[in-house]
């Protein structure tokens, strides 16, 4: 049927929202390396949007540049999504494997990344009166990505439409749960660390007399 290069398959998936991911699945295509590359690009896109958007369009607090929120917004959210989706859909008879979910999710993010880069670029030559174009490009990217994500999840798990919606909603809830537990664990470990550290200082003081 189709024979493409790795990037060719990516293009095929993005420009064929209905059939693309099905083909990807049946042809057992998609590269994990490309997927990770896309996640890195997502992070870079967020950084670019914050730092390089035209001055008139950029409302961010530019005095401090903190990369952590951007990292969380891109990389952490992505992998939480993948893990949450995998754990939910394993229980809901989904056929997708972790690797496939990761690849499909990453592939469907490409329009958003492209849209963000484009919006960032044209915001440097636009004035606020023409903001609609910048917004249009940006939201077009988001919308396209949402559609692709839906199709990707549908294809990878071989779900019907209602079941896909249900699984995605459940995934979002599980994402919250995972992040909540992660924060809980983090603060718990911090306390353990503080506890051990205080014991260490106590003992070291005793030893010194």
């Amino acid at each position: 049927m189709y024979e493409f290069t790795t990037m060719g398959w990516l293009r095929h998936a993005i420009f064929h929202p209905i059939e693309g991911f099905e083909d990807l699945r049946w042809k057992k295509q998609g590269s994990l390396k490309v997927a990770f590359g896309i996640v890195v690009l997502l992070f870079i896109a967020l950084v670019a949007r914050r730092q390089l958007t035209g001055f008139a369009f950029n409302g961010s607090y530019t005095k401090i540049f903190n990369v952590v929120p951007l990292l969380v917004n891109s990389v952490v959210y992505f992998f939480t999504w993948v893990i949450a989706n995998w754990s939910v859909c394993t229980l809901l008879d989904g056929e997708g494997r972790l690797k496939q979910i990761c690849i499909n999710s990453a592939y469907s993010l490409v329009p958003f990344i492209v849209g963000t880069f484009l919006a960032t670029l044209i915001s440097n030559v636009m004035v606020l009166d023409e903001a609609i174009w910048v917004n249009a490009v940006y939201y077009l990217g988001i919308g396209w990505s949402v559609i692709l994500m839906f199709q990707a999840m549908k294809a990878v798990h071989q779900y019907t439409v209602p079941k896909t919606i249900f699984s995605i909603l459940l995934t979002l809830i599980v994402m919250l749960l995972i992040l909540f537990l992660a924060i809980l664990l983090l603060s718990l470990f911090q306390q353990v660390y503080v506890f051990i550290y205080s014991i260490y200082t106590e003992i070291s003081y005793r030893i010194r007399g």
Partner: protein
Amino acid sequence: MKKALKRAVSLCAALVCLASAMITASASEPYYSYSYDNWDDAIPAQAGYKVEDTYTGHDIGLDKLRDPLDPLYVGINASVELNGPKDLFFESTKQEFWIADTKNSRILRLNKDLQLIGCYTGVYGAPSGTYNFNEPQGVFVVNSDDGKLYMYVGDTQNSRVVQCEVTSATECECALEVTKPDSPIYTYNTFLPEKILVDIAGNIYAVCTSVNSGSAQFNNLGEFQGFYGANRVELTGEIIRRRIWRVFASDEQLKSITSAAPVEYKNFDIDAEGFIYTVTEAANASTDAVKKLNAAGYNIWNNDAGNEYTFADSGANTYDASTNTTYTTRLTDIDIDDYGFINILDYVTGRVFVYDEFCELITIFGTSNTNSDQKGSFTGPNALECAFGNVYIIDGIKNDITVYSTTLYGEYLKQAVQLYDEGKYVEAKPLWQEVLDRNGTCTFAQMGLGKACLSEGEYKDAMEYFKDAYSRKNYDKAFKYYREQWLQDNFIWLFILIALLLVLFVVLSVLKKKGIIKKRVRKQKKQVERKKTKKELEHEAQLAAEAAEEAAKEAAENAASQETNETDEKGEDKNV
């Protein structure tokens, strides 16, 4: 030997003392001056005002009141100190200061050098028969066109407002006495006028204690006209909760719900154009903290832009790192100076915030004496007045008057802002440059220079200035013009470039059609090489095995048939 050592030590100590005294003598203002940037972050700034001097009762010549030989003699027991003064007023035509010396129940009149020239302890001929003032908290003076000098006193504990015609340095005649209104609109039990204000038409406005419907307004005949300019209720979670609860509550429950009342404004001032500015003293008031009222009592800042105006220190409870305390703001007095700038006094922090007429922060100065009890710090700042480019602040606990005078930086800044507000951006340019030389982080200066560049057509520079000022809207405007200019300047080149590209395209397509240039043949895509999965491998192996088997079978069959053929051939050969 010991003596010598002692001497040496004491000499050293003396030197150290001297040195430290010299150091303190060279110290600057008793506070860190700061300003707010576009994100409402406090940033260090130059001081716009510096402490000129403080005047106690002795300094302003209150001793005269005890001197029987002096025309101002009141009595041998007259207080020679101010005692809890609540109000300070500057009368601009005669250039005189008036003080409501509240706890001493008298009004003091000072000349422009803050020397006593009059003292009034009461008013003759009041219809109520009361002569003495009783803790007056407000004073307002009008020098009328017919040459008469009228003093309006908010005689708080006597529950009256009196209009007195000043006849001499110690005496005044009652012209009008306003007591508690009889009107059914006035539903309050008390009438304790605190602050008094009189407009051009002679209407009297009185801010009264615990009256939250606005200030009581009287016409020039003393008739009650109604309330003027009430604050709105601040929308808090409690108010919203009550509003929702009201929908479900039964009639009896409704009765028990207290209705929400707005906080009253504490003080006001009138500007040259007759607009009345009010300040609300309630802690951290955010709704209607400062208002600009028109004659009808409506806040003319009450619009989308106006509600975004912030005054005084931003943030509800502000933390002060130097004293490790959290404080609230209480705006206690407001004054509009000759430039039309709004000066607001914060009672808690002792800071004065100066804004231009569009509520852009100009400078902040002053401090409470929690940090340092020295000149220029306040314990109970009650009122401020602006005159001669100075700011006079009266302290009701320290009982003195502090004079802050404008620094050179402040002078440049104020003049520049004034020109800026008039729209004379280019004229203000050298002044802004001076400001910027002294304070590089002054966003106002960046804005001013930006606008100057914009009106001079230097869009590129304007963009830079607006970027530094972080004014996105103005940057956008400058950028729009800059882009237009750029397109106009480079139009020929752009046109040529586009034309060339078009020609090239057309020529190429024509040449292709005629076959002079061969159409580019797309390279055959490379066959994908990828690892085969285990199953596939197995499958392939199986296929291969099957194929091999079949091949073997075929071969065997072939061999068998060939044998027969061969034998046939052989036979044929033999036959041949």
